[in-house]
């Protein structure tokens, strides 16, 4: 996936820079090239964010596509109002992606404990025990995230994905100077939620 992100960054660098307002306006008028530009620039990272939340490739792909479909509709809706408002497409995309993934895991929250019992017995399958443990931890982590506020989830995941503090600030619509503090609070909330869901009693994945 690192490779994916790197290739995405390379592609982003080669894109002609247009203001987000102009891009949105062009998209709203059906300009396929502008939509493609935005899509290629952000798809992999939007997918990456969603995968971290839902943990399933097909579901993350579907949600990512829904995010861009929403962007298309959003662009239209903004057409009449573009003149006096500054838009930030990446901030919008990651916020909507977070909300969609967050809603998905919250809906799943009640089921996650039951899912634990559905994990197949790893005995006798080489390497399977570690894989199952990892899956259990991931499930607990997602359950903990579902207890956080959406913005805290977004901040933690974007930072984990390697977004800079400045990028996090823009995407979460917060002051750059507040990112560190809010990240610390989000991390604290996560640790508490992780304990609440019993994640701390599971085997931690070692680095």
């Amino acid at each position, binding site marked *: *996936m690192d490779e994916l992100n790197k290739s995405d960054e390379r592609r982003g660098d080669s894109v002609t820079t247009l203001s987000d307002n102009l891009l949105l306006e062009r998209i709203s008028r059906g300009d396929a090239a502008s939509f493609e530009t935005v899509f290629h620039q952000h798809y992999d990272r939007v*997918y990456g964010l969603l995968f*971290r939340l839902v943990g399933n490739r097909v579901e993350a792909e579907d949600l990512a596509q829904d995010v*861009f479909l929403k962007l*298309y509709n959003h662009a239209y809706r903004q057409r009449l109002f573009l003149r006096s408002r500054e838009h930030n497409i990446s901030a919008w995309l990651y916020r*909507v992606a977070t909300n969609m993934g967050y809603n998905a895991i919250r809906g799943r929250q009640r089921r996650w404990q039951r899912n634990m019992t559905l994990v197949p017995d790893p005995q006798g399958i080489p390497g399977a025990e570690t894989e199952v443990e990892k899956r259990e*931890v991931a499930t607990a982590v997602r359950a903990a995230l579902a207890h956080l506020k959406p913005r805290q989830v977004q901040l933690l995941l974007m930072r984990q994905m390697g977004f800079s503090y400045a990028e996090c600030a823009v995407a979460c619509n917060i002051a750059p100077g507040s990112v560190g503090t809010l990240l610390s609070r989000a991390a604290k909330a996560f640790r508490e939620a992780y304990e609440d869901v019993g994640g701390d009693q599971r085997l931690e994945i070692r680095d």
Partner: protein
Amino acid sequence: MPQSEKELQSVMNQLSVLEPTTADTPQTSSQALARVNHQIEQQVQNGFSYRLRRFVMSDNRRFAYAAFLFILLFGAAFSFPSVRAAASDFLGLFRVQKFAAISVSPEQIAILERVAEEGLTPGELEIINEPGDLVAADSLKAAQESTGLAAVRTLPELGDPDEIWVADGGNGRLTVDLEGARAIVAATGADPMLLPDSLDGAVVDVAVYAGIQQQWADGTMLMQTASPVVDYPDDVNPTVLGEALLQVLGMNDDEAHRLAQNIDWTSTLLLPIPQEFASFNEVTVEGVSGLALNSLDGHGSALFWQKDGIVYLLLGPDMTADELVSLAGTLK
């Protein structure tokens, strides 16, 4: 490294378990784009929600312009801005209490489009305060504070809305030019003499108020706003103007005359619905009369109703009108 940074790093390490592996590599962005483009194509062709949204938000600008100018002229603007003038000589008052619909044929829409292209205007339009930008709100509470609505209702069954938008109201004034207004009526095939001489120079003030739009991931959308208000001179007979409006929208003389007498034009907002777009019927929503639009392809419905001075639009892309009525019953 400070303790807080260590703790943050520890959480980052925990979150790394969520990273996709090589086996989780998604399809290429080009493949994904092709799928999204296909969805957009389908949406444009079939999506009731998309089409209704465009319709409501006047995407079909030329049609909207023609229909809208006349609606404004007659004093029943739904989405147009304006203001309530304090002048004592404006005694007529329109406030939305009910909705009615009229089916408009593609042929009539084409005529209205041509009228709009000709640039005919029914008078001098002055926008006193443009409606505010559509602005994202962080919460319903923030939206309520921003719009000043006494209460904001939502649909708890659907969970928190994914998007909340607010827009300020606005106001405007139309000073009628009878010659221009009659030219529009005549160009649509209606009888221009339905517009009385006394209409010349009449001043119509329209006000729309701040509103809130909530949207959920499944496409359900709820809009609410205080009822728009239209003031018009007391010597303007809204029934006569309503009859002219019905003719402009394609109804024949006799039908227009008969129907115009049965509508309370001081409280009924007439929505022109393109014939190939949706059917409609009256429904009871929250104990009041409402209007249901039903997508002709069966992919969605919409409800309009007014209760306690608030106008609501509820849109469900994959719901029947009955399901929407039930959903409206869960409003809190």
